[in-house]
């Protein structure tokens, strides 16, 4: 008795949730890719980004405390906690010909994707890239390069 009631209620609720969910998915069909979180064209490796040299502007999307501890030389802090405060500082340093490279702590963090998305959507910037592997990958690449130089 309770079991059949439970199954019926679960099915009704599951179906109810499906209706607006599908509606929203249709509404957002042009705003999100169903294939990958960040298109490959919007990702950049440490080596590629470093090759851009002065043409790249590095953005640190990690919390202030982590930025204060260490960061990519010349990187500007721009995290979501202090977005409205830090965005004008970033825009003052930005210029149209520069490519923006956003990073957070590691491959699994989300902050760089969010900051990159907001820079594209809210600040209407082009040439915004997410650094593959984030800060951890930057450190790894640096260590590899140092080892190679010390040989």
């Amino acid at each position, binding site marked *: *008795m*309770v079991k059949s*009631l*439970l199954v*019926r*209620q*679960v*099915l*009704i*609720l*599951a179906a*109810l*949730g*499906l*209706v*607006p*969910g*599908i509606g*929203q*998915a249709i509404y*957002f069909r042009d*705003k*999100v890719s*169903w*294939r*990958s*979180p960040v298109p490959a064209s919007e990702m950049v490796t440490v080596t590629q980004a470093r090759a851009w040299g002065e043409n790249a502007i590095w953005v640190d999307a990690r*919390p202030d405390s982590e930025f204060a501890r260490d960061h990519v030389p010349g990187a500007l802090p721009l995290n*979501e*906690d202090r977005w409205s405060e830090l965005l004008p500082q970033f825009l003052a340093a930005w210029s149209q010909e520069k490519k923006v490279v956003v990073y*957070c*702590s*590691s491959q*699994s*963090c*989300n*902050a760089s*994707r*969010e900051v990159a*998305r907001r820079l594209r959507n809210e600040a209407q910037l082009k040439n915004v890239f997410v650094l593959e592997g984030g800060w951890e990958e930057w450190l790894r690449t640096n260590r590899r390069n140092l080892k190679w130089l010390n040989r």
Partner: protein
Amino acid sequence: MLNDRRPVVSEMNEPSTLNSQLSTIPQFVWRIADVIVGGVFIYAGAIKVLDPIRFANDIENYKILPWTIGVGLAFYLPWLEIFCGLALILRRLYLGGLTILTALISAFLVATIAAKIRGLDITCGCFGHVSQRWNFSAHLALDLLLLAALILLLFRPGRDFRLA
């Protein structure tokens, strides 16, 4: 349409000592618990409905599901949370709402602990920007509290589980 005889939790053979202890709690306390727990899930769902892409990214952070499934869930789960929260507050489809929310919070707890063990830097996304700065212990404490509340509501003595 309601049945003449409504099934009650006492038919589920739960331990009688727990049942007798729970039956001493006044009905209005259970009702308040319904509204609070339901409200928390409605709030959590509404926050995610407003920004499903962010929630999809949060699901992606757990590195458990393929992106495509994560996007589908990001559109679906927030609405499911809202309807289940409403079920608790309005006392309609109550048993179904409680069961789904218990399953969701349990799955989320397992995923959070697994992510922590794997050393992933996760943003849970459960309460939008509000929860972004919470640490792992705060997430865990809130989830366990919600799970405990849901289980208590599920085993509330004398509860009649109405369909509609």
